[in-house]
């Protein structure tokens, strides 16, 4: 039974090490990082990049939740918003996800459910924008990995531009300017993909209207 007492002795030492590490790595370390995150400059990021308008939190610049326009219920072409990508968390094939959760659809490319969803989305978006189905870009009809993608491709922003200008009584060049201002290229020219932040677009359109 000598080995058994050796096991016990090592396990007891392991328990003591675990408790010490829990204090160091489980409390001191994350709270220290949290403290550093409260320094001005890091603070806005650490707290979730929350965007406020007139003191009211309207969302996070990192979290995409598709806005719903009640006027678009009967006539999709009468929708005033730029729209996000589909979300696996949404009730229907299009529409807002739920930012208190996150996740992808996990559907494979040969799953009939996904084929059906892509078709429905293409038709709905083509109808909303008044264009042929072939013009709808891939990111507009596929659910993102997080279900909360804040961005769309420049192509999808361009596709929505005409409708948004018309419904909001702005000129196309005004909205084109807004899209250009909110389009981010690849980092340093090659890191990541070009993106357009949807919340920023909609806020800028709203501001231009007033």
């Amino acid at each position, binding site marked *: 039974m000598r080995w058994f007492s*050796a096991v016990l002795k*090592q*396990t007891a*030492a*392991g328990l*003591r*090490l*675990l408790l010490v*590490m829990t204090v*160091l*790595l*489980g409390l001191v*370390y*994350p709270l*220290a*990082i*949290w403290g550093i*995150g409260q320094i001005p400059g890091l603070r806005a*990021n*650490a707290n*979730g990049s*929350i965007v406020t308008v007139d003191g009211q*939190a309207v*969302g*996070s610049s990192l979290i*995409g*939740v598709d806005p719903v326009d009640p006027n678009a219920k009967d006539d999709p072409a009468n929708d005033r918003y730029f729209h996000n*990508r589909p979300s696996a968390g949404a009730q229907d094939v299009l529409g807002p996800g739920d*930012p*208190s*959760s*996150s*996740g*992808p*659809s*996990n*559907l*494979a*490319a*040969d*799953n009939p459910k996904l*084929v059906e969803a892509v*078709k429905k989305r*293409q038709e709905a978006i083509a109808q909303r924008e008044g264009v042929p189905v072939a013009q709808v870009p891939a*990111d507009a009809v*596929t*659910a*993102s*990995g*997080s*279900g909360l*993608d804040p*961005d*769309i491709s420049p192509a999808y922003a361009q596709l929505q531009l005409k409708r948004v200008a018309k419904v909001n009584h702005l000129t196309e060049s005004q909205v084109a300017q807004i899209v250009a201002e909110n389009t981010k290229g*690849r*980092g340093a*020219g090659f*890191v*990541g993909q070009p*993106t357009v932040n949807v919340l920023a677009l909609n806020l800028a359109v709203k501001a231009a209207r007033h």
Partner: protein
Amino acid sequence: MNDTWAGLLQLALLLAALAVVYRPLGDYMARAFTSKGHWKLERALYKVVRVNPDSEQRWSTYAYGVLGFSFVSVLFLYLLQRLQTVLPLGLGRPEISPSVAFNTAVSFVTNTNWQSYVPEQAFGHLVQMAGLTVQNFVSGAVGIAVAVALIRGFTRANTDRLGNVWVDITRAVVRVLLPIAVLFAVVLMGLGVVQSLSGGVDVTGIDGAQHTVALAPVASQEVIKELGTNGGGVLNANSAHPFENPNGWTNLIEIFLILVIPVSLTRTFGTMIGDRKQGYTLLSVMTFLWGGMLAVIWWAEAHPNGPAALLAGSAMEGKETRFGIPSSALFADSTTGTSTGAVNAAHDSLTGLGGGGALLNMLFSEISPGGVGTGIYSILVFAIIAVFLAGLMVGRTPEYLGKKLGRKEITMASIAILAMPTLVLVFAGIAVVLPATGDALTNSGAHGLSEVLYAYASASNNNGSAFGGLTVTNDWFQSTLGVCMAFGRFIPILAVLCLAGGLAAQRKVPPSAGTLPTSGPLFASMVAGSVLLVAALTFVPALALGPIAEALS
């Protein structure tokens, strides 16, 4: 610039960054695990833990330490989850069921970080910080400790001592993981990653809709999740979640963090054994496999064959706009070539070939470049097998790094290598004939088989990524995946420590004219060949029915 060029430049920047830190970090780690001196903080820790840092242990005692530490860690993490409703910082989140708590405890202690729950709805901050973040550090440290013990088996002679497990774990945390984690946690916050003690913030969208945006202490765990090749998301979407991975730069940094320690440990190995070419040789095998699988996954995702992707025009299902195809492929390859398992895109929605590439990366026993510590010890085991096979061909007693490889050494190496395929094939085989499995699948046909195969490969290799369409909440999956994680972790660890003990006890054999040179391209191709051979012999039938069938359809 088009996607391909942008992706290639990202790849070049990543490799350049790894090349810059390779020497200094590798040598620093070698010093950290050979130095006789102790830091003040370490001395204080040893005092509280009541261990004598200058006494060394036999392989068996070292192994008892690893097992004992992991056992109490599972117990502690289990209780922390079960008691979250009565402990502080629970955020009012629900009680965790015994099966979820068991699976999660084993998962994080074994460096797997498989997740069968939605973290932002299941766990409060105390479980995240005092439970999961801690295991992100120490499970990585255990892997490094075992690797260092094996390397000492080669460097030492005529001794039954391998080092002190408590010293090795403590140094891996204090000298290696923690300083890098602090630095990059701040960098990640600067680039947009969240670190909040609030459970969520209520917002009123521009359309007037009310939402709650989930928040958590992400940055502190995100960094060690990658650096320690753990992979458990603080948020359900893992590194696809914009709060964990907000832009192309954070994505590249996270991939760098995943690779940096496993890659640099080949330098640590070379430095410790006093022959750096040996380390470069193993690194070249890792790079070859990593690069090869990257090419497969990237090409497959850029040229999808599934009907939905063809209809949409691109394989963007499950991928984020800011990453697109190249950055998602680079992440998928790196996370499955190591034991990380973090994902920035839904692996279940990868193409047949792309998902198959990720799966095969794991089935190579995760050595390209592998997890922290586990990568280097696993590839050393393959090197031993390669020397043995070569020895058989020419009829010589095999030697590696001045040690004779006798029956004991080869037996231990074989056990270490064969544990994972056995677990994967046996449990996946049983799972696919169970009637309940059909209901657990999101996708059917060849892709459905891939979901099950991927789950057991991920658990048995301690990866933790998933074809997330498989619903793993029933008791069969929760318990068998837990068993795979535990056996897949500790059988190889025990075999490796026993092997290390045997090697350290031997005398050094000076190389003779008949000794097979174990550095250079010839030996590298033999090691790579052994890896490919073992994977092909064990997994080709299963792969043919899953991802290969899907890729050819």
